């Protein structure tokens, strides 16, 4: 495993290791660096900027009167308009600050509620539920900040397209963005008249487009600076980057060699002592112990029906010495696990292979398509009680 990993790492080839052993298995991804623009997270907050409206959004909101007398019109004002207006009123009477303490937040929600004229106003109910978007901190997340501060964000002629765009993002955030990333541009569905909704959509799309054009310019300039063709990163790529700027991900994996020679001692000890993790960590150790055993005795423990007791005792010794090498002298491996490992006798069951094979193929798809996020860790499949775990080693 170490050798293959080293070769692939040097050749910049992505590797996914899979192993099926009795009722247990292992899946491990190994890549120097895998950057993702299209991470497609399951749940991600929309980019409404209720806590930081820009001039055009503001102007649009001003054209709508919340206190319109027509009841139908009153309950078809989208909550974006309601919250931007109310947040503005609040900040004016609170020295330019948005609600921050618990009491203030409650007060703000009550303030919104007070504008309801009847109980069936869904738009106001949505506004109250979405009020937390007003309290959310402005600007980019710490994760994106970290990516922007990464050493790779200093563009050079070797930089990948991803990092060139991150460099542009960094510039954007410090300048035109005023702390914010390019606007994503889409808005969620909400109770509203069709007219208001479509107008609102147009305003968000327009700002997203404007931000994109700025980013495009910056990307071209950076490409020129590092001696590359300014049109070498396509418009659709930059557009996708802008839309996903808040959701970027960078995955880096230790080499297998590093994992083996510099073990995460605290992590291993912690997992071995934890009720939910001890099975998975135990099998991780045992899978490695089994390989040591094989190197010494030229067969797998329990491979043959005869000599089982001897194999069990030898595997135990091997495992304990491995634990010592991992810096975990005091840790214990339950005898049951050692016995099971010998019982397995290096058998390969179709269903276990199918399970870990399925996991591995899923990871390959994610790595190849650069969409969704690959697993960050070593997955140990525990087919006995299904308390499989992703171990960070």
């Amino acid at each position, binding site marked *: 495993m170490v050798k293959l990993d080293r070769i692939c790492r040097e050749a910049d080839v992505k590797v996914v290791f899979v192993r099926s052993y009795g009722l247990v298995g292992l899946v491990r991804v190994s890549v120097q660096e895998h950057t993702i623009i299209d991470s497609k*997270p399951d749940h991600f907050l929309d980019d409404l900027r209720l806590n930081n409206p820009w001039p055009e959004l503001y102007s649009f909101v001003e054209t709508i009167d919340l206190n319109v007398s027509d009841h139908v019109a009153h309950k078809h004002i989208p909550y974006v308009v309601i919250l931007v207006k109310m947040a503005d009123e609040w900040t004016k009477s609170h020295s330019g600050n948005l609600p921050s303490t618990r009491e203030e937040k409650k007060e703000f929600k009550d303030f919104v509620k007070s504008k309801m004229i009847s109980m069936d106003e869904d738009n106001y109910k949505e506004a109250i539920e979405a009020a937390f978007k007003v309290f959310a901190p402005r600007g980019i997340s710490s994760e994106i900040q970290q990516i922007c501060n990464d050493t790779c964000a200093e563009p050079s002629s070797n930089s990948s397209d991803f990092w060139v765009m991150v460099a542009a993002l960094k510039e954007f955030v410090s300048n035109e963005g005023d702390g914010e990333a390019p606007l994503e541009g889409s808005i969620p569905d909400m109770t509203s*008249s069709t007219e208001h909704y479509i107008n609102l959509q147009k305003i968000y799309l327009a700002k997203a487009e404007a931000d994109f054009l700025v980013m495009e310019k910056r990307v071209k300039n950076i490409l020129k600076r590092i001696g590359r063709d300014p049109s070498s990163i396509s418009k659709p790529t930059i557009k996708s980057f802008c839309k996903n700027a808040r959701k970027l991900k960078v995955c880096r994996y230790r080499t297998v060699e590093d994992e083996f020679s510099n073990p995460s001692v605290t992590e291993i000890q912690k997992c071995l002592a934890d009720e939910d993790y001890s099975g998975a960590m135990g099998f991780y150790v045992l899978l490695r112990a089994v390989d040591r055993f094989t190197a010494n005795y030229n067969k797998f423990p*329990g491979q*043959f029906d005869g000599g089982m007791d001897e194999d069990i005792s030898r595997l135990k010794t091997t495992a304990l010495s491995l634990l010592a090498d991992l810096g975990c002298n005091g840790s214990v491996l339950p005898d049951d696990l050692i016995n099971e490992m010998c019982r397995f006798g290096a058998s390969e069951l179709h*269903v276990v292979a199918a399970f870990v094979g399925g996991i591995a193929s*899923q990871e390959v*798809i994610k790595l190849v398509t650069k969409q969704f996020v690959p697993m960050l860790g070593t997955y140990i499949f525990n087919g006995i009680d*299904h308390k499989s775990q992703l171990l960070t080693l």
Partner: protein
Amino acid sequence: MADLEAPQSKTRDLDKLLLRAGNLVGPDFYPGAELRDDIRDYVRVLVVGAGGLGCELLKDLALSGFRNLDVIDMDRIEVTNLNRQLEDVGKPKAEVAAKRVMERVSGVEIVPHFSRIEDKELDFYNDFNIIALGLDSIEARRYINGVACGFLEYDEDDTPRRETIKPMVDGGTEGFKGHARVIVPGVTPCFECTIWLFPPQVKFPLCTLAETPRNAAHCIEYAHLIKWPEVHGGKSFDPDEPEHMKWVYDEAIKRAELFGIPGVTYSLTQGVVKNIIPAIASTNAIISAACALETLKIVSGCSKTLANYLTYNGGEGLHTKVTEFVRDQDCLVCGPGILIELDTSITLQKFIDMLEEHPKLLLSKASVKHGKDSLYMQAPPVLEEMHRPNLSKPLYDLMGRVQKDTVHVFGTALKNEEKQSSLTKLRVVFKGADGVTDMDTAIGA
């Protein structure tokens, strides 16, 4: 690694688990060649569903020592189905699945059933040791759950009787997410016990559809739910009928144009109307593998089993989790059955009428079965006529004059404002009946 001592055997790997004793095994594990051979020769497994999950399940089970499999599915293969060869389009899924797996694995016998699960007799399901589900709807799961739990009998101290326990393994997938669960009626929660796990389906408010549509889905659902009944009156909409789907699409386009809303396409129309969630082959492979593994473990006892619900999510990294849910003691389906106390004079007709009024049942058009005897059947007309004379007879007499016993009732129940086929178990106790009853005849025929 050359295996010098033992000759190569097809079951070499399985043997290690089935022939060797272990510590982390099931409570009734008797390792040995006999166990392996019994699984091969006598154990029968039913796979319900021959879609993405069902096909994987058949293959996994066939390669795990099972030789006697049945598969049931009422659909034919469509072009959009995964993992099929084009020449198979139009053929029944069950038949093609059976054929393909038998081609790949020599020695396995798979009997396909091209039919609806409701059209099979209860006895059909009783012939299997375990049922593996690869379904895509809550209704179908509920039905099979009702059937399997219907076999369950309790003894005097309300302990489930082991020989009546019909275990099920259920898998489900949706994009990158999936679950696998083990259901042992009377021991683990059944499907009904944990029905609250399923969030209600998203429905758009009617006023949005009717007055203020904002996106393409609203326009489509307007055409589907409002315009269609308006124009077509009694004729029900059939999502599998291309002409119906085209009609909805055209109307949705008109509406979208009227409101200036972009995005209506034929494919989106299908997706919204049929509630289609794209399937990923690897998720199906993973979940079916987990289900097949549990099936092997339950049948053989060769290892401890999943207790009892596994969730999987592979979109953002990888997350798997096991949750041990607890049975609902009052479950209408896997519990000892709702207690119904009756007078010995009550007629079968009156009993059937009572079921409709009963607050926990609300069961209309009920058919009644006592053990193997059908007391009354609503359909087909021939059998209805045959059983009609029973309606005026006292239920007590029809049930053999026992003081208490179990009956199964099947009909249409109103659950959450929706009508669904329902199979429920009832404990009938007759008041004022002679307490001296021969216990041997008390438990059904």
